């Protein structure tokens, strides 16, 4: 009887699984991400060469940008009339002319929201129409400006 007990005990000792438990911590940081790239390579251009061009909105091309933001966001635009990119400063009539991007009028005074969303976004090749209206009359000239756009998380 004693031998039997010893055999059973030995069997149990050998058969019982041994278990050990350990942990490894994992910590992730997800930052606010705003990636914004304007894809326009050349300038938007338009030539006024007839009377009917004046006084009505002219489609001078599209702004094209990629935008990835992982939370609510907005894109604002403002007209710059300086010497950036070799342009002629102060030759844009920000008072008499009307320029809009995505149907939002921009000026040189303050940035205006031209695009926004309350949720994350992942856009490639977002194309927004740019319209320009110059009232009659306007003398011969070659004015230029820059549309500066800024994307941010909100």
């Amino acid at each position, binding site marked *: 009887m004693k031998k039997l007990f010893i055999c059973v005990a030995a069997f149990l000792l050998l058969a019982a*699984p041994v*278990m050990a438990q350990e*942990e490894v*911590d*994992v910590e992730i940081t997800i930052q606010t*991400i705003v*990636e914004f790239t304007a894809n326009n390579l050349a300038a938007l251009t338009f030539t006024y060469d007839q009377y009917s061009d004046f006084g009505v909105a002219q489609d001078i091309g599209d702004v094209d940008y990629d935008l990835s933001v992982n*939370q609510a966001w907005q894109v604002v635009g403002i007209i710059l009339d300086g010497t950036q990119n070799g342009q002629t400063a102060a030759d844009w009539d920000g008072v008499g002319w009307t320029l809009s991007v995505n149907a939002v009028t921009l000026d040189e005074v303050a940035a205006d929201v031209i695009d926004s969303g309350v949720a994350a976004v992942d856009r490639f090749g977002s194309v927004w129409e740019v319209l320009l209206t110059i009232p009659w009359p306007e003398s011969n000239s070659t004015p230029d400006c820059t549309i500066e756009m800024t994307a941010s998380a909100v």
Partner: protein
Amino acid sequence: MRKLLFSLLVFLLSAAPAVASPSEGTALGIILGPVQLFIVNNVGPLSFTFDQYSDFGVVQDIGDVNYDLISNVGWVVRAQISDGSAGGQTADDWDDTNWSLSVNGAVVDESVVTAIDGDPNPVNRDDALWQVLLTVPWPQSASNPDCQIVLTAETI
């Protein structure tokens, strides 16, 4: 008298082996129990910062699990994600549904334990390194999620 004592002593010495035979022995019983030593060597947490768009949606190597394992029988190491408050972590901030985490190529989640390593033979490993890969799909708002990988070594 002295001769008699000497003769008796010689008789006893010569007769002793005959008294001791037949020879006897002592049984020796050994029990080799299952032996297992399992130590995780990771000191700090595995960490990764998602700071650009391209980080999302693709597998990111966030480091290695490092453990020592000694076992004299067949063995298995299993893993499971724990998203509680152990170790000062924030509970319930791990998106187990959408995120994918693997250890040694085996996907690990919160719902079940998954075998990440095993062998039917004994093992004696120091610093076994197993890659930990994490995939978080776009978009994911700014946050600091954490979890624990619970590793369990067991003889089989």
